[in-house]
């Protein structure tokens, strides 16, 4: 099964994390990583470890917040949840992404038609 190169997704990873937290509510790091992998049907070829610097960055921007809690298995874990600012950011990024996707799609259909 072909996997998606990580550099292609550079910059979209933040978006995926925000979207996941938005959809699922507060999650700990492993859960976020698994969720993203499941949604991408295991086509993402990036190390799970890269999630943590990304989470720190989102936190520094104030788009997510974190709180220590206890997981379903009783393990002490840090839960991340999206903030108001994060939701606003997600809205902007989603709109940007859709616009960009539409343009690219249009471009592909147009070049197909010209063939």
């Amino acid at each position, binding site marked *: 099964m072909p996997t998606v190169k990580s550099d292609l997704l550079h910059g979209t990873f933040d978006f995926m994390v925000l979207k996941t937290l938005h959809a699922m509510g507060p999650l700990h790091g*492993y859960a976020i990583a698994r969720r993203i992998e499941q949604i991408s049907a295991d086509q993402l070829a990036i190390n*799970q*470890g890269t999630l*943590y610097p990304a989470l720190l*960055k989102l936190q520094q921007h104030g788009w997510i917040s974190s709180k220590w809690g206890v*997981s379903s298995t009783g*393990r002490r874990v840090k839960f991340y949840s999206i903030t108001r600012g994060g939701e606003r950011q997600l809205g902007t990024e989603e709109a940007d992404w859709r616009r960009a996707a539409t343009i690219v799609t249009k471009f592909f259909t147009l070049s197909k038609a010209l063939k």
Partner: protein
Amino acid sequence: MRPLIARLLALLRRRQLDDELSDEMSAHLEFSTADYVDRGMSLADARRAAGLRFGGTLQTAEAYRDRQGFPLLESLWQDMRYAVRTLRRTPLCVVTVAGTMGLGLGLVGFAFTILNAYLLKPIDLPNPHALYSFNWDTETTRRQRFRLPDYEALEPAARRFAGLAAAQDITVMQDAVSTRGLLVTGNYFELLGARPALGRLLRPDDAAARGAVAVVVLSHQTWRSRYGSDPSIVGQRILLGRQRFEVVGVTEPNAYLSGQESVSFWAPLTMASAFPGIDPWAEPDAASLVVVGRLREDVTAGSVRAWLEVWLRQRFPPPSDVAPVAVHLDSLATRIILDGKTLTLFVLIMSAFGLVLLVACANVTNLMLARGLARQTEVAVRLALGASRWRVARQLIVESLVLAVPAAATGLALIIVTARVFPAVILATFPAGVAPVENVLVPLNPDVRVMAFLSAAAVVSAVLITLAPTGRLAGMHLAHASRGDASSDARGSRLRSGLVAIQIGACALFLVGAVGLLDESSRLANPQTNLSYERVSLISIDPKVRAAVARRLASEAAVEQVAVAWKPPLMNGSLPTTRVTASATSIALNTGYTVVSPEYFPLFDIQIVRGRTFTPTEAAAGAAVAVVSEATAAALWPGLDPIGQTLDLAAVPEGRADRRLPRRRAQVIGVTEDVVNGNIFAGIDASCVYFPTDVQPLTDMSLLVRARTDDVELLRSAVTTAVKEVAPEVPFQVLPMRTLVGFALWIFQAFSVAASLLGVVGLLFAYSGTHAVVSFLVVQRTREFGVRMALGATAWRIVRGMLIETSRTAAIGLAAGLAVAAGLMRLFSSSNAILPTVGGRPFVVGAAIALIATAAGALLPLSGVARIDPAQALRTE
């Protein structure tokens, strides 16, 4: 902004954050492992798989930390702490570097402090950068002034100015002392934005009508020195010129413009008729006004100059004799106007002092190189552990920057102390009777500019002293270095020798200058002039009344002799020269000449060796006769009798029309002994021809008076009486030649002291530089020497070898230093008459002192060679 704050906050709890991350990562791996186990893997396989899926925890932690805090700053901070720890272990090195570099920084910083105070620091008035003075050059006159009608026409036309004001110089006698004042338009002080220290300044209504308001504002300096800081001065009436003026105020201490240091008072221009000199309303054709203006904020000086040029061309179209050739706008923002000439001087002085700093840096670089070698093993270990060379280089640079801090502090302390001592020394040594020096001294407190300059110089020096050690780092062989094996490195030793050569060269350069100047000042302490000038005074007075005053003075009892000359001897530069040819021998000579009245010879007690001087008739007619000096006679008529010979004069193309010699041929009537008619620094004239003149009203000449006694005051009162009789109110000055010569010598001695100081510093550096390098070499090569001694070489042989090496370095440095010194001397002696031409002595003495210092620096550590025990030295192998 937000991430920045987050990063800043993270700095405060970084350990906690580190712990949290590792906790998070281990939770992650636990969950991942559990998932894999659930899928049926063995625990070991599951752990492995989880680890693979996660990627390296170390890399993650590293990436995490890079996002957290400020990694570059933190590592710089680490470098700094490391540097401080390392340096603390070698306090002697720190003290040496801080002292050496601090001395260099202090000297160059002090030079900058002085130049800053005069050339860069804005004067103490609001927005001084908008203040300009305006004038123009004509075909015949430089810096043409304005006539009153010109100024009145300019004022309404000049919309580019926030304001324009005019001022006129005047001089009045106050208790037989000439006092300088400025007559100004009523808006003058408003335009400057000056504030009074006492009372009020002049206002427009003070200058509303001619002769209406007799008020005056005193300068702070005059108020202090002449009126003893009298607090009740405001309201008093003082006599100035022909009238009493009411003192309305005193200016603040430094509220004067460039060139107005000696102005004692300001009165309304409308009071001009109360003073001797020009009244612009009575003489509307007299160009006596200096115009200053404040530019509006939205216009540039360039556009104003262009506009003024157009305005001047329209007002004075070409046939006019004041048609503009060049228009000047001089910024009045600083104490001295910063133009091309002052900038050149600025650069020259800073270069001389900068050289001291450079030599200090060379000195310290050597120390750093030696230190670098001693620490090679440490560096090699760090490189072997994976530190990049850039990382190690950065460490070295940070170390130098840390070293630069105490150096800059030392420099600053030196500047502060010198800034206090320097004016005090000047005040204490300044010859009495010349202009009051307090007017010219400005506060020398180190300000923001000085601090910035010092910091920049310290950083540049820090980088300079790291360049060589860092450069060596690049070429370091890890394997060699970690063994501590560096003695085979020839490149490094060449570099060190080069640095020592620079120090010795600079030392020689400074010493030649210092010895040259010292020689001259000791010669000038008892100058051989053959002139008896001690009782002679120069009378400075309006040329219009000079003849009358001269005639009247001759009958004063206190006066022994009155004479005139185109140029007073001993000062005002060297003699003008002209080309003469002796008719009898056809020998041509470029000879100095002067034009004097017959009394000039007895006035200065110049002996007539043969023949006679001019008769009054010859003097009055400017007859075609000449008196020559003995040296001139010997050069033109060797073995012949000069009396009765004729001289052919080439036309003198240069010089002003009123100073051209009218004659083409002159007959020699007398021979004098050789004296100094030219500059006192140049010594006895190599040649001099005297031509006759008498007191003439218009020509620019000096009136010289010889008193019967040494008492200047007696002469002053005699001159006062004489002037009062023939030209009441005309200001004059009695300038004793003793004082003037003393002042010239003082300036010269000040130069000598400064040069000697640089010489001593250079000497110190040359000595310590050589000492450091040779001692280092001895330590470094102890093993080699041990082996050689074990093989039969004597200690003397080794010392001789080292001495030869050092001498080679010294010779190169000396040659370079002496060459530069010779080049500079030639440059200066051709362009500047202040500096005397020196012979070979300073070069020999300077080179010898530099050599002795170098030899002492080398021999002291070399004495250690004799104590090397071959057995001991070999055992360390």
